[in-house]
Each structure stands twice: as C-alpha cells, then as structure tokens.
C-alpha cells in the first residue's frame, strides 16, 4: 500500500522536532547502525507492493517496504532472480533494506553487487521533499548517479520510497560442489579456479570449500572436470549459511575486504567472494597489514564494543562532506564507516 504521504509526514515531523531519522523496513539489519540509538525509526514496512514488472525488459520497480521474499517469489514465477543474492537476516527483510545495506551475496565477484542492479530510486530527501533519480532503464547518464550513491548508504542520505532493479534469467543449472580442506588449500583452489566458466560462488567455512556452477547443462561436465578430484555435489545450504553469517563464532564479527591472494590469518571464520571477503571473529580488533585489505567492524558479539573511530582518511573526509552537503541539518542518521583505532 502506498504510504508515501504518511512517511513524508513522519520525516517532516521529525525535522520539526529536530530529531534524527533512522529509516527502517523489516529492521533485520539494525546491527549495521550501532550509533542510531536516539534516532526515531520511520518504518517503510507497510509501504509495500510491486509497482511494475516487465520480465522481457529485465526491470522491476517496487515500493521500498516490499519484503525481499515476496519480490523473490514473484521473480521466480517468471524464471528470473536478483543476481546480487542479498543475505537474509529474517523473512521480514525488505527491498529497501537490501538497497540501504548494499550487502551482496556470494556471486558478487562474478555478476556484481547490489549497486550494479539498482537503476532508479524515489526517496524522501533530508529536506522532507520527494525526489526521483535514475529511472527504469538500464542506460542512463543524466545527472550524477545519486541512485547508486544511496545504495549502501544505510539510510544516511534519505528514506527510500521506490527502487527500480535490473533482474536476470535464472540459470538453467545451479549446483554447489564441496571439498573438505583447510583454509590454506581452499585459498589455493580459489585462486586456481577463478577463471572457470560458470563459476558463480567460491566460499570457505567450517573446513569445507564450496564452489558453485551456474550455467547451461551442456557446459556443466566441463566445469566438473576442471574442478578436479575430491569435489562432491552438495546442497546450497552451506553457501547460504556463509552469506547469512550463520556460522559459529565468538567475539565481534569484523569484515576484511582485500586482495584475493593476501595470506589467510588466524581469526578468520569464513571466506567468501573467492577470497576477497573474509569474516574475522575476535573481541579485539584484528591487526592485518593495511596494504592488502581493510578491516571494518561489522556486527557486535557478546563483549563490550571495541574502540572504533570513523574513517578519517581523505576519502572518509570527502564522504562526510558529501553527507553534510546533502543533509546539512542531519535529518538522517550518519553513516560513519567504523574502523578499529590504530
């Protein structure tokens, strides 16, 4: 149902009371905004519905509060899917939440992330007014790409009302293969297998390397042959568990983003994206050479929050300038990228 007016009133009411707004949908990813405690939650959960879907144009436009599972079911009926494979932290997760969090699943290195599939957006700006950027077409270079700037911005620049997404046909065959091995051997396989035609995931967790084939039936035997000895067909549950962070760990969860060939370190509990994304668990900030990757705090564990500071390099300062320019009065929560204190 269209709740645009109510949402706009809620944002305007917060503006008039000098309150900060935290946009939310299913609120399954609240852990991403630990500093949003005092903010007023303005929820898009009732603002749902598919506005139009043209399978032959590979484009769908939805209201932000549409549940991800509902969109995925609609796409599946037409033989299509969201290639960015967002993680699910609960069935009430919304499309707006997917876009605001910008978290992509295991296919990220092979087909792209959330921002690569977002085409357009309508949102409530920090002024309380409604604006639209991008559109329902795949190629569009009119104006700066405000749409993609909002992907992964965690609601810091506006409250999304509508999102247009590019979708793709579901591959004919999807099959995950597993190999029991240690992390070092898993990384060797990951590097050696990077060019396999049809490779669409490569992750490691709980002593198993999981690689996925997506493509035609005809090309599948070639893929299996190239994998080599020891790989067995397995269900896709293991890959989904890595994607949704359903692996055992103690302490805070940190993400490391860096070079696929960087050495594997001790605190690592899972590896995804062919080695470009690694999940580290520890109470204290992991110390890893900064030239091959960056550690960011991601999800709280049981202990007290570690010492974190907003990213303060030139890019971090520019990010803050952009936030200040677009939201000068601080209507929406900030998105300081939190890094361990050096």
């Amino acid at each position, binding site marked *: 149902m269209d709740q645009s007016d109510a949402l706009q009133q809620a944002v305007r009411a917060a503006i008039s009371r000098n309150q900060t707004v935290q946009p939310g949908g299913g609120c399954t990813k609240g852990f991403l905004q630990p500093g949003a405690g005092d903010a007023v939650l303005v929820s898009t959960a009732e603002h749902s519905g598919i506005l139009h879907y*043209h*399978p*032959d*144009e*590979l*484009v769908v436009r939805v209201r932000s509060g549409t549940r991800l599972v509902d969109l995925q079911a609609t796409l599946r009926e037409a033989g299509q899917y969201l290639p960015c494979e967002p993680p699910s932290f609960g069935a009430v997760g919304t499309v707006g939440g997917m876009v605001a969090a*910008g978290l992509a699943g295991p296919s990220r290195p092979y087909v*792209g992330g959330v*921002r690569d599939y977002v085409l357009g957006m309508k949102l409530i700006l920090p*002024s309380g*007014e409604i*604006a639209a*950027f991008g*559109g329902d*077409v*795949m*190629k*569009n*270079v*009119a*104006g*700066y*790409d*405000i749409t*993609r*700037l909002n992907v*992964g*911005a965690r609601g810091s*620049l506006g409250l999304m009302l509508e999102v247009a997404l590019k979708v*793709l*046909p*579901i591959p*004919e065959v999807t099959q995950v293969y597993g190999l029991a091995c240690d992390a070092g051997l898993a990384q060797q396989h990951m590097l050696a297998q*990077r*060019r396999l*035609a*049809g490779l669409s995931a490569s992750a490691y967790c709980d002593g198993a390397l999981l690689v996925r084939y997506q*493509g*035609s039936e005809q*090309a599948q*035997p*070639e893929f299996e042959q190239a994998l080599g000895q020891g790989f067995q067909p397995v269900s896709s549950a293991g890959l989904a568990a890595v994607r949704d962070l359903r692996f055992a760990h103690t302490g805070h969860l940190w993400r490391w*983003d*860096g*070079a696929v*060939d960087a050495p594997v370190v001790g605190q690592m509990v899972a590896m995804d994206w062919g080695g*470009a*994304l690694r999940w580290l668990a520890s109470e204290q900030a992991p110390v890893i050479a900064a030239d091959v990757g*960056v550690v*960011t705090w991601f999800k709280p564990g049981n202990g007290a929050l570690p010492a974190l500071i907003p*990213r303060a390099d030139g*890019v971090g300062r*520019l*990010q803050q300038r*952009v*936030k200040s*320019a*677009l939201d000068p009065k601080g209507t929406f929560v900030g998105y300081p*990228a939190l*890094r361990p204190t050096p």
Partner: protein
Amino acid sequence: MLSEAITRSLRQIDDLELIEDPSRRRVYESDGLTAIAQVPPLVALPNSLQALQETLQLCHAHGVAMVARGAGTGLSGGATPLADGLLIGLAKFNRILDIDPIKMTARVEPGVTNLAISKAVASAGLFYAPDPSSQIACTIGGNVAENSGGVHCLKYGLTLHNVCALKMMLADGEVLSLGGTGLWEDGLDLLALLHGSEGLLGVVIEVTVALRPLPEAVTVLMAGFGDTKAAANAVSAVIQAGVLPAGLEMMDRLAIQAAEDFVHAGYPCEAEALLLCELDGSGAEIAALSAAVQAVLQAAGAQSLVEASDAAARARLWLGRKAAFPAVGRIAPDYYCMDGTIPRRHLAEVLAAIADRSTHYELPVANVFHAGDGNLHPLILYDANDSDQFQRAEAFGADVLTICLRFGGTITGEHGVGLEKIDQMCAQFTTLELAVFHAVKAAFDPSGLLNPGKAIPTLNRCAEFGAMHVHQGAAKHPSLPRF
C-alpha cells in the same frame, strides 16, 4: 581568469608542455560534438602526476577554471574548452601500469585507449568488456567520466560495472583512492558517483579495471524483419526465453541500406528492421544456445536468418553496425546523433513519434538501437551549411529527447549531457533534484572550477528554459522566477 601572470607561472612547472600557438590550440576547439567549438586560450599537457597536481594547485589558488580532456571523442561537448579557462590534456598518461592475470585486473593511466586494454590482455586470455564504438580512440579516463557503454552492456554492464578502483585528484590537487583493495569499501560509494560525472568532480589519474576470460565460443545471428514492431517483439521473446545475449542490436531500413551500401556486410536490404544477436559461452553450449535463439527468432517472424560463427563472418556482420554512423554520413552532408533510452515496450510508439517529427521537420532519420537495453540512437540527416536545416535538426533533436522522457526514458543513455543536452536536464529533473546535484558538486569542488557550465544546468538557466517549455501540462520549476 587565465591571466598572463598565471601563464608565466604555468611555464615554470616541470614536465608541463604548454600549447600557446593559436593554430595548435585550434586542434582542441571541440570534442566529438563539433557543432560547438571554442578555441582554448591555453592548453596544458602534463607529463607527470606532479606536473598535473601543480597545475591544479596553481589554477585552484587563482580561481582558474579547468577542463580535463582525454581523446576528445565525447559526443555531448563534455570536453569543449572554456573561453577563459585552461584545457588540460591527459593523453600523455598512456601507460598500462600493471596486468594481474590472477586477480584479472589491469591498472592503467587515464589516457590509455579502451581498445588498448583488451589488446594488452588478450595474450593472457582476458578482455575488457565495455566497448563504446569509439573504442579505438577513446580513453579510459573519458570512459569513467561518461560511464561509457557499448554493444555488450546488456550482458557485461557499463564502465561503472567494470571498474574496481580509481585514483583521482580533486580540484585542489588532493589525491584520493576510491574503491579500496577488495570488492567493497566502507562509507558512501563515491566510486559509483564518479562514473558519469563528466569531469565535474575530479580528474581521474589511474583506473583499475576488471577483466574477464575471453569466451571460448562466439556466434552472431542476423535476422531480418518486415517491420520494426516484429523485431522489437523478437527482442522481448529472446529475453523471455531466458537468454542473455552478449549483444543485441537493431537497425531500421535507412540505417540498413546506408550500412550495406557502405561496407557490403550482406545485410537484407528489403528488411524494415534488422537484428544482430551475439551469443557467447563455452564450446559445449554454444550450438544448443544458437539453435534455441534461432527457433525464437523464427517464431517471432524473422523473414531471413543468417548465422556467422567464424571470426571473419562475424566481423563482417558487425562491421555494418559499427560503420552505421559514417555510413549515414555518406548519404547526407551532416548528421546529428541522438542518445535517448526508453523502456523497450514503447519502442514502436517512440519510433512512430520520431517518424512523425521527421515528416514535420522534413529531415530524414535513420535509427540504430542497442535493443537489449533500450538505448536508441536516431541519426538526423541534414546539411549544416543550410542554416535553416541546422536549426530544424536541432529542434528535431530536442523533440526526440522530449519523446524519450514522455515514454518514461532518459535524455541520455551513454553520451552524456555535456553542453548539448543541458537544457533538457531541466525537463528531466525538478529544481529540487538539480539542487541535489549542485550540493554534490559543492562537496567535491566548492570553488566550481572543474568543467563549469557542463552536465548540470544552473537553476536560472532552467528558469529561462522552463519559460519556453511546459511539460505534461505543468511547469517543472514553479518556484523560480520567470523572465
């Protein structure tokens, strides 16, 4: 302002070549949009990053506006010089710095041409996917500035989807690295924002591109249709069948004939519309894929169907499409290339509306179309020496953009706004939305020195434009004074 004192200071910078001679400066008077020309008062060609940085710092300190330029192949006037600013040519930054066959990336300077990247990595079994038609000459820095596309976007994406990281200088010379070392960077996605920013936010000094393994097998299907609607329906049917072609291009009768007369590609001249469909994949799957698509095209009413699977035959079919612009150039003294994108379901109506304008302005139009992604390139034929024809062509072009907007599309799919479409920006965006663009610009370039006057119109400019045009019955900028 670019004063004699500043020119003297620029002369002191090491590794900086200055072009002061008027006849040599004239070379830079326009980019691919030759209708707008402005001889730059001074051209700087830095030969090192330090020289570039000192140039930016000096201009920034003295409030001199700057335009960065790659190969100057852009089609919207994004690199048109300013009457009182410095033109900075980046063509000397043409080295490929690093090719990493394991990570499948290449790190290159901004002046490296698009095609040079694919050529350099071919021996490693890799290629760089975005392929704008000017790829032999256009530079990767310019590709980032325009978020360039090409014929393979449907499957492989735009420049944005194929750049992992880049280094840039802000207007004051500060160097920033965007994109991190992995596939995700914390904080706002400024890497995405830089793509298509038309040189207004920063100067790109290094680009790390993602490479892909060369496909094992490629085949091209060419189908002729009795009318454009049937061809458009065939495009829908191919995608409905779950196929994602590497390229899917459409040409109308005038474009087919011009291309055939020019390069003899073997096109069916009796067809009203032509589809070129490129499929790629592994050797094991390509035959089945091709058979499936051929069946879809037949069922959609293809009157002729040809497959080219060897490299020479494929190249011949593509030659006609890639030569469509110069081919049209042979049948008229001048042509004006438009670049709208529309939701494809409206193609027949949009083509009918364009045909109606063609009759109205008494100027022929040839259409080539990136059919897979809805990006339409009508080529308006005219004679620039006839000022009446020139004015009609410009009015026709503006009408085409309005038509694209009316059907839910955009005024530019891949050529950019530049100077050419700056007035139509007022029709596509509200005052509020334009203010957001200006805020972004202010965060990056508070002094407004990088490529001023391009891409994003001032609100006053829109007030003037809006006074002449009322869209969908409502003025787009009601809050602004009209004068």
